[in-house]
C-alpha cells in the first residue's frame, strides 16, 4: 500500500494556538489515496474536513499549523517543504477546487489569462502553446465554444460554467491529486450532477486522485470509491463507500445515515443524534463522540481514545445499527 499510494497522510495533527489554549481542528488523521481513486471526506461543519484538505495542500491560515504527522505525495514529504518549493508543488502536483467558484476566480482578468498564467507558471511552454492548452482544458471540462469563450470574464459565466472553469484551472497543469472542497454545494441539482460526472470522468481518464470534501452523503455515495467520516477533528471511520454506508461500524456514521432523509424512507420521524458536535475548545476525553453515543460505556469516557481498528475508531464497532 505504501508504495502504490499517491497521497499518504500519517497521523496528521493541526493546531491553532489561541489565548485560551491550543485547539486541534485535525487530530491524528491517517488516510491514503491511490491514483485514480476518489476519496470522499464527509462530516458536519467543524469536523475538520476542510482543514485536512488545506493542510495537505499547505494552505493553512496562520496561526494554524501542522503540529505532527506527515503528508507524503508520491512517497515524498510535502508538509515540511519551504514556502517557495511548496508553491511549485501546489498547482503542479496538487490542484484545488473550492466551494464558491466566484471567489476563486479573479473577477478582473479574463479566464484565459488566468489559465495561461497557471500553465506557464508550472510548465515550460510558450505563450501560444499555453493558450492552446487553455482552450483544450476548457474544452475538456465541457465549456461550449471554448476558443471564443476564453476571453470572457468570470461574471459572464453561469455558476455551473464558472465551476467548470475552476476545475479546468485546477487540472490545467496536470496534477496527480485534486482536492475538491465542497465543489457542488453552491450549485443546483441538475448542474451538480453535471459537475460530479465531469469529476469522475476526468479522474478515471487521467488517473488523478481526488479528495472530495463534502457534507452531502448522496454525493459521496455516487462519486467516491472510499469514504472517510470525520468527527470533531478525528477520523471516525474509513473504508469502501458501499461498506461504510450500508454497514456502518461507527455509531456516528450510523447516526448520520439515519438522520439523512432519503435513507429512512417511509418513516414519520428521522432518527436524530442527540446534542451537537462539541466545540474545539471542549472536545471530551476519550472517544469524542461518547456524550452523544447510545452505546457509550465507562471505557469510552476514559483515555486512551479508541484506535482505528478495522475501519472504525470505536471500542464497540458495528454494535449500533440504524
Amino acid at each position, binding site marked *: 500500500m505504501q508504495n502504490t499510494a499517491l497521497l499518504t497522510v500519517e497521523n496528521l495533527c493541526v493546531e491553532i494556538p489561541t489565548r485560551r489554549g491550543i485547539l486541534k481542528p485535525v487530530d491524528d488523521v491517517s488516510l491514503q489515496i491511490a491514483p485514480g481513486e476518489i476519496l470522499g471526506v464527509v462530516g458536519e461543519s467543524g469536523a475538520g474536513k476542510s482543514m485536512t484538505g488545506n493542510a495537505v495542500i499547505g494552505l493553512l491560515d496562520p496561526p494554524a499549523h501542522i503540529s505532527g504527522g506527515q503528508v507524503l505525495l508520491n512517497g515524498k514529504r510535502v508538509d515540511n517543504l519551504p514556502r517557495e518549493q511548496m508553491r511549485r508543488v501546489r498547482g503542479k502536483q496538487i490542484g484545488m477546487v473550492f466551494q464558491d467558484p466566484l471567489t476563486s476566480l479573479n473577477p478582473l482578468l479574463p479566464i484565459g489569462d488566468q489559465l495561461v498564467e497557471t500553465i506557464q507558471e508550472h510548465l515550460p511552454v510558450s505563450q501560444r502553446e499555453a493558450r492552446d492548452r487553455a482552450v483544450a482544458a476548457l474544452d475538456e471540462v465541457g465549456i461550449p465554444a471554448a476558443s471564443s469563450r476564453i476571453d470572457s470574464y468570470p461574471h459572464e459565466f453561469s455558476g455551473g460554467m464558472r465551476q467548470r472553469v475552476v476545475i479546468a484551472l485546477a487540472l490545467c497543469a496536470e496534477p496527480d491529486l485534486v482536492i475538491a472542497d465542497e465543489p457542488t454545494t453552491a450549485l443546483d441539482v*441538475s448542474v451538480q450532477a453535471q459537475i460530479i460526472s465531469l469529476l469522475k470522468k476526468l479522474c478515471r481518464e487521467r488517473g488523478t486522485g481526488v479528495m472530495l470534501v463534502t457534507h*452531502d452523503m448522496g454525493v459521496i455515495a455516487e462519486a467516491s470509491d472510499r469514504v472517510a467520516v470525520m468527527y470533531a477533528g478525528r477520523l471516525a471511520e474509513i473504508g469502501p463507500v458501499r461498506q461504510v454506508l450500508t454497514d456502518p461500524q461507527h455509531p456516528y456514521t450510523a447516526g448520520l445515515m439515519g438522520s439523512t432523509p432519503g435513507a429512512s424512507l417511509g418513516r414519520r420521524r428521522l432518527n436524530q443524534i442527540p446534542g*451537537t458536535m462539541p466545540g474545539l475548545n471542549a472536545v471530551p476525553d476519550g472517544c469524542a463522540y461518547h456524550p452523544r453515543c447510545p452505546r457509550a460505556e465507562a471505557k469510552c469516557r476514559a483515555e486512551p481514545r479508541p484506535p482505528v481498528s478495522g475501519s472504525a475508531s470505536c471500542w464497540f464497532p458495528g454494535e449500533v445499527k440504524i
Partner: protein
Amino acid sequence: MSALVKIAGLTRIFDVSKPWLNRLLERRPKAFLKAVSDVDLQIEERTVYALVGESGSGKSTIGKVVVGLLAPSEGSVEIEGVDLHRETDAAKVDHVRSDIQMIFQSPFASLNPRWKVRDIIAEPVAARGGDTKGLSERLLEQVGLAAGDADKFPHEFSGGQRQRICIARALASNPKLIVCDEPTSALDVSVQAQVLNLMSDLQEDLGLTYLFITHDLTVVQHMADTVGVLYLGRLVEEAPRDALFERARHPYTQMLFEAAPRIDAFGREVDPPKGEIPDPINPPSGCAFHPRCPLAIERCTRERPEMRQLGPARVACHMAEP
C-alpha cells in the same frame, strides 16, 4: 378539508431595467423578469405543501407573495377566503395577517443580534399589543430549548438552536400557516433531522399548515403531503407526494429526480442533464423547458402547455401521459 390558501393566476413581474440614463445612452428598452407566471394552487388545511425547484424557479417569490412581503402583479392569493392585497376591511386583514408566519433560510441573518431571545420571540405578539408575560419561556421549552435561554443573545446559540428560536418566534402568534423558505438548507444533516422532527411534531400537535419551500428532494419526500414542481416561474407538475415519487410525469420532474444524488446509488453513472436553466428575462417560447427536454416536439416550441389533470397529478406538458 378545506383550502386554507388559494392561489389563482398568480404572476409577479420585477422591473430589472438599467437606470434610465444608461437605457437612454445605450438605446435599450426596459427589461422585465417574470419571476412567477400564472401559478394556480391550493393548500389544504393541516397539510404540508412543498414547492420544489432550482434557483430562479420562483419558489421564494411565491412564498413572499403568500405572506404579503410582495404584492402580486396579477392574480390573487386568498388566505381563509381573504385576499390580503384587495380586501378593504382592515379588521379582516389584520385577523388573517396574524395567522401567517414565516421561517427563513438563514438563522444567522433573520435574528436581530442586538435583541435578547425573549424580545425576539415575543415580538409578533408585542407588536400587536398582546400579553407576552412568560410567552417566550413557554415557547422555548416547546421547541426544545431551556426557558433560561430567554435572557441570552442570538450569538450564543448554534445554527440549529437559532433555527429553533426562529420556529418559536413563528409560533408566538398562534398562526395557522407557516411559510418555511429553505428552513434546513443551512444546517448539518444531524441538526436538520432534529429540526425536521420538531417541525413535524409541531404540525401534528398544533394543526399547522406548512408551505415548505426547498430544493432538496429528500426533504420534500420526508415532509410533504403535496408537491408542486416549479420551472422558470411556472408550475409544471403538482401531485400527492407518493404518486409523484412513484412516477413523475413531467420530463423536468423526471430529470430532477434522475439528477438528485441518491444515498443508495453507489458509483451510479448518471447521464447528466443537458444544458442549464435559461435566462428568465428572455425565456424560451412555448414550453420553457423545451430546449432541454428529451421529448420536445415542434408544438412545444410554439404553444405553452396548459395544466392537465392526469390521474392523481396535474401536469403542464403536451407529451405527458397519465
